[in-house]
């Protein structure tokens, strides 16, 4: 499965969550979100779980790579 990648690095909250929400509306099967801080990681994960997605986290250096899938 190829998921679109949303680059939300450097964005301050709530922008990563807004980008995630819009991207999931267009790609309901799943997306990958890149963020670069813990707050954005927590907020995107919380939003995704509330929306019924499973969240897989990989730390890539200073960045977080969140795979959101049903």
């Amino acid at each position, binding site marked *: 499965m*190829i*998921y*679109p*990648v*949303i*680059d*939300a*690095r*450097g*964005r*301050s*909250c*709530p*922008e990563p*969550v*807004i*980008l995630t*929400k*819009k*991207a999931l509306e267009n790609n309901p099967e799943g997306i*990958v979100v*890149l963020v670069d*801080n*813990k*707050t954005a990681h*927590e907020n995107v994960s*919380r*939003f995704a779980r*509330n929306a019924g997605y499973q969240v897989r986290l990989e730390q*890539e*250096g*200073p*960045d977080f*790579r969140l795979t959101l899938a049903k």
Partner: protein
Amino acid sequence: MQEKKGIIAAGLVIGILAVVLVQFGNPANMGICIACFLRDTVGGLGLHRAEVVQYIRPEIMGIVLGAFLMAKGKREYQGRGGSAPFTRFVLGMFVMIGALMFLGCPLRMVLRLGGGDLNALFGLVGFAVGILVGIQFLNRGFTLKRTYRMPAFEGYLFPALNLVLLILLVVAPSFIFFSSKPPGASHAPVLLSLVAGLIVGLLAQRTRLCMVGGIRDAVMFKDWYLLSGFIAILVAVLIGNLILGKFNLGFSGQPVAHTDGLWNFLGMALAGWGSVLLGGCPLRQLILAGEGNGDSVITVLGLAAGAAIAHNFGLASSAAGPTLNGRIAVVIGFVVVFLIAFFNRERSSDFGIKGGVNIDLSGDRR
């Protein structure tokens, strides 16, 4: 519910601390107020000469240093910045001018409600309306663009400045101003204020507590996490005030407040709109500033400048009510915030999606 426990506990502790600080000398319904305390601190430095509101408030330094220590301990500290700094400065200025029209930041609005000050209801409604207006722009692509990594040293300067302020408070050289009348002269002992501030800073950093974020996330994402912290503060303050007999329900005679409903509403609407564009309330900006976020440092400096302007130009309200200059400044603030909101929208095609998952991230990070 499980993940809300932490922020609810933090909110309860912060509410209790606010009541305790008033019990030990802080102005009534002003245990902790970021707008008021930045204003007092700016006055203590002589950047405005309103004699009744001059005192370097150690709660501010405690909050910044608490957030710094917690971020360091949790390896979340990071020097960053570069996201539309001067726009943030200007937004900070007008958030302060709105808050001083109402007489309190969003946190003090909650404390005032918990003390029975019904004028704060007009503030709360205005605050929510300001946030709702801001959300319309967020949903249409409002952004101040991304931040960048900065040298770690850049982020150390603001906590260091707060240490210097603490030294100035304790040493009290003759060029520092101390009010001899309330509310500036009303304050808890320095050590208590500092420790309370530290605890607030530690807890707010951990939980990301934010008054603006609470209403924003509930409306935008049906996410009640931050709002539950806000409500916990209200509950703790309400109970604390009832126990200590400090609960006084009504509109008139409320401490450091005025009864002009329209301008209480408009002041907090301006503060709410500006704050939602900034991504957080004044408390949250202080916390982020302690975490190494230079954009928030600039915002706090904007808040401080706004406080100086508000008192130098007679914009701040008093118990007697709002001033004409203050009304004009709030109206100008709405125009400026609208222009900032309108001209910083990105079309959705401009951001975000980078194509498939197979991109090479290693080359991306340079």
